[in-house]
């Protein structure tokens, strides 16, 4: 900062403390929104994995094929469940759970 021209030094500084708060809070909001978006994508991925895990799309009279020591359709189901575990753990790491309820934050009790 000391090597910058005076005008740049001035413009780089926030004018008031409220500006700092608003910058920090808008950054926080943007990062929260991005996390929420990724979380939603992860949950959608989990839903797809659940649909694929059930072998409804396979012929029931297909011959036995063994993958990783398991019938192939079981290996697919297991692969999907491993995927679900990883995506779900990531989704929980991205989940923000506030410790205090803020009025106006959904859901509100009936009558309010």
């Amino acid at each position, binding site marked *: 900062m000391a090597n910058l021209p005076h005008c740049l030094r001035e413009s780089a500084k926030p004018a008031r403390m409220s500006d700092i708060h608003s910058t920090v809070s808008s950054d926080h909001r943007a990062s929260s929104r991005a996390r929420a978006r990724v979380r939603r994508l992860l*949950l959608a991925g*989990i839903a797809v994995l*659940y649909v694929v*895990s*059930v*072998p*409804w799309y*396979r*012929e*029931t*009279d*297909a011959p*036995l094929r*063994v993958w*990783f*020591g*398991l*019938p192939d*359709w*079981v290996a697919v*189901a*297991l692969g*999907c*469940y*491993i995927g*679900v*575990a*990883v995506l*779900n*753990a*990531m*989704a*929980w*790491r991205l*989940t*923000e*759970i*506030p*410790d*205090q*309820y*803020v009025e106006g*934050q*959904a*859901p*509100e*009790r*009936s*009558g*309010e």
Partner: protein
Amino acid sequence: MSFGEIGTAALVIYLLTLTGIAEVARRARKDTSAGDHFLAGRDLGTMVLFLTLYATAYSGNSLLAYPGRAYTSGFSFIMSTGFMMAIIVVFHVLAPKLRPIATTFHFVTPGDWVRYRFGGGAGAPEPGQRALVLGVGILMCIALMNFLLAQLKAMGHVASIVTDGAVPYEFGVAGLAAFILFYETRGGMRAVAWTDAAQAILMLVGLSALFAWILDGAGGMDTVTRTVAKLRPEAVVVPDAKTCVGWFSTVALLGLGSVVYPQAIQRIYAARDGRTLANSFALMSFMPLATTLVVTLIGIAAIGLLGDIGQREADEVLPLLLASWAEPGGAGQIGAVVVFVGALAAIMSTADSCLLSLSAMMAGDLLGNSGSDPTTAKRGKRFAAVLLVAMIPVAFIEELSLWRLLELKMELLLQCVPAFLMAIHWRAQRADATLAGLVVGTALSVGLTFSGFSRIYGIHAGMLGLTLNALVVVVGSTVMRRSLETQTSDSELATQN
């Protein structure tokens, strides 16, 4: 030393350890409030919360009934790994929104949420709110009593096996139930959570050792699969359409139903903070792979190891496998004892959580005592004692299979889903419509079950009941809201004129 002597010694050491933990938990008590007794002062950290969630979720059903189910159903029971994982996925719908409200308004029981949600704000409660709290409370208590009964039966069974008959079935049920009552009333949720943590570790160690022994003896998973394909070809074929529908239905039934377990809801309240809760759930995501998958593969391996033991002996798969492990003596004998004590630990940890939640709900939701009232914890302890004494003679009757008890419980719990999972997201939902849905959904699922239609084309009666329940809630809430809006605009017009 014989198997029975090692087992009896291990059981005594285990019970003495639990006594010590209960005493430490009692000394860690901060006050005599219901929040401290039933929720450990709302201060459970990540590891203890994770282990207590784990030990509570994986019960006698997981360890004794699941290998039996895998033995009879074959590889399609891999669905159990999916439905146990679905529980932690469905918690995304409830926990992030419920937790801040629960901490702000000091909830102790699940009924506190229903009371708050349909409380009508500053005005009078919504019509039907009190009946809804009672209805949800009754369904949850019946489901919990059913679950507790299954655990008591399993406890007597395992205690008798581990001591080689030195502790008879009836004495195992009554003696261990008295023991749970002792440490639960001494240390409350803190004792339950800490003993759960010890029990979870035992369970993990025991299961891993058993699975390693089975794979080693069978010559690897590949050989197990090929042996099963020869002995019972239907156990390895791709499931038919009806089984696939049943697979989806079971994932939905257990995923949705388990989220409204009262003891699970209370653990959301008991976490130290939101981050702790989220981290515990993140860890829990992997536990079906370490537990349910292992017991499923154990059950499948039993097809080759035990041959045809018949449907009636299905609940005996794990004890029979352990007996053959222990037969040559030495390390196998000690390993079998560790698994048995681990199984007993899993059963006791689920039973103690059920009992604690039952006593909290009976004192709070059914009798309407406030969580902030210091006498609520005392009343809850008395209820726990009365309940356990009343249930022990019922547990002496050994007829219903563990799996059927689990399914019946789920069908009832499922009808509470709209009061939690829908009501937390949909502001327009009304108490009277939710109550109507609960009654109609319960009537349909119980009616179908008792008429012998526990599944229709693979779909559980409980899921059909829930669908009807949710429809009644949506239609009822929408109609009542419109009628209220019409009344309000009519009265505004009348005032203006």
